[in-house]
């Protein structure tokens, strides 16, 4: 142990004698480790924000969509059928014990006009539980009432983006917006949710009673989807099963494969998004990893130069009693010290870089301890890997030849 410590001290001294070279060699590792840490934190930040925005779309949310069309073997795309009705939604509310709220969903795209401003956006119809299901909150105004829903009142609640475009200077509550040449009264403004993980503006939205949206803007019998909120996270699978069973019964379906609807949970979507962002993280990390490999080659290069340059030193050490193993250990230690110090500085550089990215570009970054642990062990491994061959070479020198080296 004592001997090991002494040799480590010898290695430090040797590195200290060549400060500039040691620092430049470490720089390769610093840049490599720093790049890996920064890139992984960008990737993981994106992953976190996607997961966060998906769960922000609504708590314990399930989504019932019409299924694919199948006549004589010809299938149309998912969601093209018009099989869901208001009655289906009422039945789900009534029959499924694991369901807390359900709301019909109708989506139409319409132009909103106020004064000399206009804005094309998507109008979503729902019932009075829409805010709870979708996880929206009101900033001002109030939700529409059951009475307004049954009387198909022309009332809307608008998102922040709409407020910015149509009402830049004034309070939108109580104002009348023209949609399809009819006036609709703004009764509420939603709290901002910001961008979703895939870059979609979640504040560019208009909500209205499904009855009004359907009758005044669409005039169809069916609804586009049914949004459901399960009673708790654990009950999501139960709610899903209950809805599927109920829908099959109501639509007279005997075989599971013939379902004309589909029940999706948000966690399914979250998994999908997570997969794609994980792929991105891997991609970023492997590109950064290339620079780490370059850094490792730098360490090996310098160690080889160092062994050649210090051949006489090796000869002297051997003459006074160093074994090949002692010499190998000394050079290996030098390489490991370079790599580990480079690794530590690289970790710091990576943390700083990801903070800078977060502040200057507004990217969500998250420095994970696992990335730091990985980077540290990788740099130690680089030290061993890149130092092994030069150290081995040094240990095999013939002391007589080494002493004669000029």
């Amino acid at each position: 142990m004592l001997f090991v410590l002494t040799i480590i001290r010898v290695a430090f001294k040797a590195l200290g004698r060549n400060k500039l070279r040691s620092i430049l060699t470490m720089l390769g590792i610093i840049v490599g480790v720093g790049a890996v840490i920064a890139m992984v934190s960008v990737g993981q930040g994106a992953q976190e924000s996607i997961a966060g925005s998906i769960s922000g779309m609504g708590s314990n949310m399930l989504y019932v969509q019409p299924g694919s069309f199948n006549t004589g073997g010809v299938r149309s795309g998912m969601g093209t059928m018009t099989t869901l009705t208001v009655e289906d939604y009422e039945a789900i509310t009534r029959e499924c014990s694991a369901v807390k709220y359900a709301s019909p969903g109708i989506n139409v795209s319409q132009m909103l006009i106020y004064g000399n401003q206009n804005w094309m956006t998507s109008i979503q119809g729902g019932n009075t539980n829409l805010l709870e299901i979708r996880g929206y909150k009101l900033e001002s105004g109030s939700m529409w009432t059951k009475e307004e829903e049954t009387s198909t009142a022309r009332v809307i609640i608008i998102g922040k983006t709409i407020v910015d475009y149509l009402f830049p200077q004034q309070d939108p509550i109580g104002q009348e917006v023209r949609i399809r040449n009819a006036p609709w009264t703004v009764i509420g403004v939603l709290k901002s949710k910001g961008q979703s993980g895939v870059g979609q503006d979640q504040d560019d939205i208009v909500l209205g009673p499904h009855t009004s949206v359907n009758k005044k803007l669409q005039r169809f019998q069916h609804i586009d989807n049914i949004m459901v909120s399960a009673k708790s996270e654990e009950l999501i699978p139960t709610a899903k099963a209950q809805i599927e069973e109920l829908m099959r019964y109501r639509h007279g379906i005997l075989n599971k494969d013939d379902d004309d609807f589909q029940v999706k949970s948000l966690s399914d979507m979250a998994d999908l998004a997570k997969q794609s962002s994980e792929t991105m993280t891997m991609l970023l990390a492997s590109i950064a990893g290339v620079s780490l490999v370059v850094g490792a080659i730098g360490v090996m290069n310098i160690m080889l130069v160092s062994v050649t340059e210090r051949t006489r030193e090796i000869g002297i050490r051997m003459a006074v009693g160093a074994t090949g193993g002692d010499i190998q250990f000394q050079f290996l230690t030098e390489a490991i010290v370079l790599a580990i110090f480079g690794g530590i500085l690289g970790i710091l550089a990576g943390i700083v870089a990801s903070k800078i990215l977060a502040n200057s570009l507004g990217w969500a970054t998250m420095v994970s301890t696992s990335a730091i642990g990985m980077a540290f062990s990788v740099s130690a491994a680089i030290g061993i890997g890149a130092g092994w061959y030069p150290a081995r070479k040094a240990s095999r020198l013939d002391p007589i030849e080494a002493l004669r080296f000029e």
Partner: protein
Amino acid sequence: MQPMKASQEILQDQKTANQPNGNHVIEVENLHKFYEMGEMRVHALRGLVVTIDRGEFVIIMGASGSGKSTFMNLLGCLDKPSRGSYLLEGTDVSQLSRIQLARIRNERVGFVFQGFNLLSRTTATENVELPLIYSGIRARERHRRSHEALKRMGLEDRANHIPSQLSGGQQQRVAIARSLVNSPIILLADEPTGNLDSRTSVEIMQVFQELNEQENLTVILVTHEPDIASYGKRIITFRDGHITRDEPVRNRRMASDVIATLPPLED
């Protein structure tokens, strides 16, 4: 009284049995060394027989290529004989592994070179400590012993100087301090005065003579100069891998006497 004496004799016998060669430090028997250089086979040493006793001061002379360097490398355990035996204090070196050879170099052999061979950018103290590192000795003890060795060479005030800040003579003294720090049984010097001016050469020879006389240290020294050779006690001359002459030094000179006759330094 008789039985007592008998037991003492037995003790004496056992002692000589453990060290069958008595006072012999080096025993070389039919020593050969070949080098394979491609197709060529160089026969550097051709069957040497030499015995060196404790306290001898042996000068080795010979033209370059005569095999004297090869012989020194073998004596210093830097290399192994191709054939024959070399006993260092009764240990057959030809049978040892590389690690064991390193151990012997560390504990029993001191080297002094023509080019000093100190580590550059490393202080005198650290240079002298070098062998002790590989003996696994603690830092405090290393400092103490290296300081002692430097003091003996009259260099205690140069302990923290690096080689480039020292004169040639001082560098060679540091190298001698390094060779002595582990109390070796033989001191091998390969043209130690080759890079030094004549006055400094005599001073260095004085150091070797003192170590040889006062500590009974066995010194083996290679030189080209007959002048330097006259400070030894025995001269072995090499030629073409053979020992051609092995004789005591006639008219031996003492370095301390020579220094007294030298003109004082002008600056």
